[in-house]
């Protein structure tokens, strides 16, 4: 399959990328392309110019800063999975990155690309929301709570580039997902994180965009154990329904995955990946 013709650009700096964006007719960014290139091949996307952010070294870092793991938007999934900062301080995030796609996809796909795409089944959106991350861009900082606004829609404005994401280090965290057996995408994924101030429970794959479940957060804040969630069900209203799973089934899976994520979080917190 051949995408529509476009002009390819590989800027060396963020400033150069922004200048290219300003000067192009209908520009768009490329940040790994593991979702976008398949969409372009199906001719679902046809920008005049593609500005490739993958080579920007200033976006490619992972560091522990104070009590947060800060990941550059250009960090590839394999790097998030294997970095000492994530495996040492936020193993749940490293394990989540290791569960995305397959090894070849993880060698190309980036954190910033995944967040900006906001696929309803993306894994990183659950981690960003579940950890209460802060997303820094070329214009501002955006709380994860305000970032995911709809199906493939984020708070990003045209030309705005994610630069880094700050994930506060929790005391406990776990991610569980129920994969579609054919595609491997999350039919439902739940990220649970416990911090000094409470518990967050974020769901991906179930709705148009990632969302938090307040009733579960309150129950787990009172007592952090899987059976605290036993009596909580979430309504299927507004959940995704397709040939893979009905909204009712997804609602059921949210409960199951949330309990598994709590069990995961309660396992030894410095769990090694291998």
């Amino acid at each position, binding site marked *: 399959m051949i995408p529509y013709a*476009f002009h390819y650009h590989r800027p060396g700096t963020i400033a150069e990328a922004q200048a290219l964006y300003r000067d192009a007719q209908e520009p768009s960014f490329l940040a790994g392309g593991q979702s976008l290139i398949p969409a372009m091949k199906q001719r679902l996307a046809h920008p005049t110019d593609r500005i490739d952010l993958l080579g920007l070294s200033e976006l490619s870092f992972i560091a522990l800063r104070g009590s947060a793991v800060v990941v550059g938007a250009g960090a590839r999934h394999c790097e998030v999975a294997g970095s000492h900062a994530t495996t040492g301080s936020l193993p749940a995030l490293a394990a989540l990155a290791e569960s995305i796609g397959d090894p070849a*996809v993880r060698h190309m796909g980036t954190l910033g690309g995944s967040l900006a795409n906001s696929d309803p089944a993306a894994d990183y959106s659950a981690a960003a929301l579940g950890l209460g991350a802060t997303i820094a861009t070329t214009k501002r900082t955006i709380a994860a709570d305000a970032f995911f606004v709809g199906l493939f829609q984020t708070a990003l404005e045209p030309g705005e580039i994610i630069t880094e994401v700050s994930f506060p280090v929790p005391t406990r965290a776990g991610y569980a997902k129920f994969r579609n057996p054919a595609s491997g995408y999350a039919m439902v994924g739940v990220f649970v994180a416990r911090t000094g101030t409470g518990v967050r429970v974020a769901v991906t794959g179930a709705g148009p965009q990632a969302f938090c479940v307040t009733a579960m957060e309150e129950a787990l804040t009172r007592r952090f154990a899987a059976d605290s969630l036993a009596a909580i069900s979430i309504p299927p209203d507004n959940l995704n329904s397709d040939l893979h799973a009905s909204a009712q089934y997804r609602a059921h899976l949210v409960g199951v995955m949330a309990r598994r994520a709590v069990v995961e979080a309660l396992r030894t917190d410095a769990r090694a990946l291998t």
Partner: protein
Amino acid sequence: MAVVEMTVNGEPVAADIEDRMLLVYFLRERLGLTGTHIGCDTSQCGACVVHVEGRAVKSCTVFARQVEGANVTTIEGVAQDGALHPVQEAFREHHALQCGFCTPGMIMTALDMIRRDRARNREMIRHELEGNFCRCTGYHNIVDAIEAAATRLAGTAA
């Protein structure tokens, strides 16, 4: 159209291509390296896996212009001086193929997982093969081959 330059299997190459040309088409149609296969063309099957700077990628989901200046290795670059690579030899010994269509991608993925020390046991090998499909017979002999090659290569390195 613009000229793209890269190194493929150790040889510098250059060609005038459209910006939208995918790496797999560049390798197959411009360079005649048809060992890299197009299976699903939707980044599922892994028949198109090549190495870019030593890392396995799906060449149907990368534009050729994105790897400008990079070192690319295809299945044609794996055997050295006419001798099969130990991973290729293990696939032959363990009969890890029937039709052979998936084999180039399987071998490129196997090399990548061994390089990253992610072929230490059968469970790990199966996890690493998530992005490579064999539609003939299943994965049993492929896992056997990769396990044997990883063991042999670890012995060589020690």
